[in-house]
């Protein structure tokens, strides 16, 4: 567990970056630090591995004050991922990943062998090992950045805007892979982002910072969406937080109507809604595992206002109109 105890950081010149922060980041969980620029989230993150020294207060890792540990040794035990990955341009991908194990005294050969496995783990084939960072796309660089941080198998990872330099499609993919990885590894992670969507999606807990370094609220994503502590948090999580909240509700309990009026192929899979110029695309389908947000999205986008549910075999097994969904939500509330 990482604990901030009444931490203050005032930069020379007098600007307060972090203002009396007390916060716990539970072991094995991902805590997202989110807030507008200049809110002190990055400064807070960088105080954990002593890249920044607090003006007052303490930061403890499992009860031990980081200020009492050797700087370099502390950092070698903490994975560090930054925006644009910060890869060493003069080293191959493989040697980038092997950096910390080598610093810790492993032979280059051992470190490289382990690095090769890690590359695969983050979804990069062995072909990439001998390349240089300049030869990779932004998304690939970011994967190498994650692999490099994981190389010495540190229990803690600090991630500063790790996914914000890539385009939305790639980011989506990296998010999925990263969540899967974290499910396996169970690291204690502090992740800084300015993107509330990312924080809600990745964070087990979300800490919302407001400008000039004060913590506004900390809680699970659901708590944040359901009960924002004040106007600032409500504004920050957004006007559409009701819709966002649906992300946490499964579509499993949602009643459906029988399939009717939908064009199907021989296997019962949806082809489209009948139209004057041939079938009109349904705009996608959902399953019982999807969230209510997906259903709402489909119903709104559908040409006829109806979302199509499919079973495991891909055959359509139910329909939900946006009226049905509204009724369901209204019924649930009362």
């Amino acid at each position, binding site marked *: 567990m990482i604990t901030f105890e009444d931490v203050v950081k005032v930069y020379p010149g007098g600007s307060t970056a972090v203002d009396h922060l007390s916060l716990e980041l539970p072991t094995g969980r991902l805590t997202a630090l989110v807030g507008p620029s200049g809110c002190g989230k990055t400064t807070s993150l960088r105080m954990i591995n002593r890249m920044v020294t607090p003006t007052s207060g303490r930061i403890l890792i499992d009860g031990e004050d980081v200020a009492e540990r050797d700087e370099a040794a502390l950092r070698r035990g903490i994975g560090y991922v930054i925006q644009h990955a910060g890869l*060493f*341009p*003069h080293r191959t991908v493989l040697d980038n990943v092997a950096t910390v194990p080598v610093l810790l005294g492993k032979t280059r050969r051992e470190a490289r062998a382990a690095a090769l496995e890690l590359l695969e783990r983050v979804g990069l084939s062995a072909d990439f090992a001998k390349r240089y960072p300049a030869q990779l796309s932004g998304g690939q660089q970011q994967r190498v950045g994650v692999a490099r941080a994981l190389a010495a198998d540190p229990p803690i990872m600090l991630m500063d805007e790790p996914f914000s330099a890539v385009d939305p499609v790639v980011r989506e993919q990296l998010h999925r892979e990263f969540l899967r990885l974290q499910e396996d590894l169970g690291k204690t992670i502090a992740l800084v982002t300015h993107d509330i969507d990312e924080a809600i999606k990745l964070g087990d807990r979300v800490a919302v910072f407001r400008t000039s370094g004060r913590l506004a609220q900390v809680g699970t994503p659901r708590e944040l969406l359901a009960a924002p502590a004040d106007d600032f948090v409500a504004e920050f999580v957004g006007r559409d937080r009701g819709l966002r909240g649906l992300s946490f509700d499964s579509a499993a309990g949602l009643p459906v109507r029988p399939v009717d009026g939908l064009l199907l192929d021989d296997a019962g899979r949806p082809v489209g809604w009948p139209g004057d110029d041939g079938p009109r695309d349904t705009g996608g389908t959902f399953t019982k595992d999807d969230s209510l947000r997906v259903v709402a999205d489909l119903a709104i986008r559908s040409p006829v206002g109806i979302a199509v549910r499919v079973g495991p075999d891909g055959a359509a097994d139910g329909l939900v109109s946006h009226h049905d969904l509204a009724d369901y939500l209204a019924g649930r509330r009362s």
Partner: protein
Amino acid sequence: MNLSYLLDPAHWELGAPYSIPTLILAHLGYTVLALLIGTVVALPVGLYIGHTGRGSFLAINAGNAGRSLPTLGLLMLLVTLLGLGLLPVLIALTVLVIPPILTSTYAGMRSLDHRVVDAARGMGMRSWQVLTRVELPMALPVLMGGFRSAALQVVATATVAAAVGLSGLGRLLIDGLAVNDYSRVLAGAIVVAVLAVLVDLFLALVQRWIVSPGLKGIE
């Protein structure tokens, strides 16, 4: 004006006191020693200034200050003070090479992507490791650029050693001029220019060898 002096085999006899190979050797000797001493002095200072950011005023202005010092005047002053010998030539030429090496080392260190340096520190490299494993290798392309221009300058300028009675390819220029033997002057000019090109080619090879392929702007 003709090439007769340059093409006369008698002037190429190895080991003869005034032969072209002997003069080349002396010329290269001045050049290499000056570059070596200059690097030993300027590189650590440039790295220190670039790494810490302290004293950048010195590094930025060293270039133009160094260029403004007339090497011929400095050399004649040193010979007058210290007497004839290798020392005055080496001092004068070293003073010539320090500014470009210092300035380019500093410029190379300043041109680094600070995020990469941040990552290196964040991964637990100590200050010395950040310098030798990350900053220096990344600064090498710019640094080598400065070193190569210093080398070119010193090859061309080492000719002034002859003006104070020392050896080197300047002898062909000074002596040829003294006896109105333009063929000899031409030989001197050609050999110096060719030597400069060869030295630069050699350094280009060294640069290819020591600079990581990752820094060569591969798309």
